């Protein structure tokens, strides 16, 4: 087996708790002893609800936040030992896609400026090759260059904005894409399109994809392996078919039970079985974990 693109070992991230008058409170562990590997051509899904630490984990994997303990390694090399040059390679190779495309795109830039900035910054294009490259990139995310080249962010629909964000991520020929809730701000029919786009880009470029989502439908449709998190800990991990098809953990089962099914017959049959299962895992508040 080849070396994973990204691997994380015993990752802990704790935030200092606050008490009144700035005294030290109890620390809260947002991410608690997490291990994971992402291989080339593989989609790893991280599932959890709010407060599970999945977005904090994403920021640690992207190198945007330092973990309190544990190690993240890129092709076997720890990111703690990175030189400036290593960081440059890493930033190119590991690309994020965020939930809200409108706020991740600069509203004052036209589409071609957004993309050419990235290409020029990483010296992937010269003035001459820039035009055709942008046309290709837009084509690869299903947008017609003539039509979208000069648009501003606000002139695009939510789905088109997310396509531009994906094109920007793909521009630097990444090895790994980390997508944090890439679909949850989009309409249902657009979600299906973006999901297909991510899946086909992943296959055609042999990318690794880390998909962070609270939506089991999305996870089921696209991922190879899945990690389920609750209050910072991994409660279950394994191949998607096994975890979602035959969950071993109670929390995973209650997540599955809560999944709404677009079929009134099934919905009504399931009700009795569900009522017993849900409600054993209380929702965390801002104050911290439920008692």
């Amino acid at each position, binding site marked *: 087996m080849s070396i994973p693109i990204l691997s994380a070992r015993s990752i802990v991230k704790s935030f200092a708790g606050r008490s009144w008058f700035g005294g030290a409170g109890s620390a809260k562990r947002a991410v608690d002893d997490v291990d994971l590997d992402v291989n080339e051509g593989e989609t790893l899904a991280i599932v959890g609800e709010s407060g599970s630490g999945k977005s904090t984990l994403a920021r640690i994997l992207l190198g945007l936040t330092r973990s309190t303990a544990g190690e993240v390694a890129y092709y076997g090399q720890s990111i703690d030992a990175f030189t400036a040059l290593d960081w440059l390679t890493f930033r190119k190779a590991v690309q994020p896609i965020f939930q809200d495309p409108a706020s991740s795109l600069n509203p004052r830039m036209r589409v071609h400026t957004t993309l050419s900035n990235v290409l020029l910054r990483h010296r992937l294009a010269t003035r001459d090759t820039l035009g055709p490259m942008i046309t290709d990139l837009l084509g690869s995310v299903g947008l017609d260059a003539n039509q979208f080249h000069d648009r501003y962010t606000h002139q695009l629909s939510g789905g088109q904005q997310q396509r531009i964000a994906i094109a920007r991520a793909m521009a630097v020929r990444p090895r790994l894409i980390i997508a944090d809730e890439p679909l949850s701000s989009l309409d249902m029919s657009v979600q299906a399109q973006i999901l297909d786009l991510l899946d086909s880009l992943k296959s055609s470029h042999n990318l690794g994809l880390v998909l962070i989502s609270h939506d089991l*439908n999305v996870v089921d449709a696209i991922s190879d392996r899945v990690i389920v998190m609750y209050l910072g800990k991994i409660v279950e991990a394994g191949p998607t078919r096994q975890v979602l098809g035959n969950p071993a953990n109670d929390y995973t089962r209650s997540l599955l039970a809560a999944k*709404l099914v677009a079929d009134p017959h099934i919905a009504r049959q399931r009700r009795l079985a569900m009522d017993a299962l*849900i409600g054993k895992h209380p929702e965390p508040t801002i104050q911290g974990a439920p008692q």
Partner: protein
Amino acid sequence: MNALSAQSPLLSARDVKVHLRVHGRVVKAVDGVDLDVYPGQCVGIVGESGSGKSTLGRAMTRLLPNVELAELSGSVSFCGDDVLAMAPEAMRALRRHRGFSMVFQDPLSYLNPTLRIDRQLAEALRHLPDRRAVQQKSEDLLRQVGLDDTARILRLYPHELSGGMRQRVMIAMALAPDPQMLVADEPTTALDATVQYQVIQMLRRLNNERNLAMLIITHDLGMIAELCDQVYVMHGGKIVETADVFTLFDAPQNDYTASLLAAARRLHQTKALGDAAMAVQPLP
């Protein structure tokens, strides 16, 4: 369903048009909608963003700001009174007692961050004679929405509650005037899956036990399948199809409805999950 159609509708909308003025152009957000809600019935309006479903909900509850309107026509009758033509005083009376209440997507922006929950509930209970009655009714309302730790929750501020608890508090406030109908615009969209499920089941119980009529506005066909009796599909300001929930999902007549269902099924019923969801074991 046959029993329902013998009764007269609680809410009845006929040829409702809401045309908005946006940057000098007229946008036909709602363009000739007919809709009925019978007592105790749960009705769903489903559509994608921009379909006009929220505008329709706000028009029928008279919560549209007047300034941007180019046209507001048609009739909305609630228990025989024309809501659109009602004087402000009569409208307030309808909201305060046995009328309809609304619940929105984001509870945090409808709760006052500087007031404890007890004060906010008390505001909706001003018709009660004294503080004892208010206290008692507040606790009763919280229990109805599944918040049993009433004494503690009444003393908390909104930021100290989780998202699910906030939405339950919002629904408790909506129930305070003892309404005959609840209009909920994306009531669970901001919530986690397990919490969403619990809130939906709580709405279902209110619908059954109190015979509370509901109008659920959502983009989520899963929620419609879970909760609603009658469904209206909205697209481009018009109702493109209406049917009872089973007929709509089993045999959609309209192309747009069919495409919405196909998109939902692409996400809702895939590989392992279809079976797993069915195979959930009941716990002892």
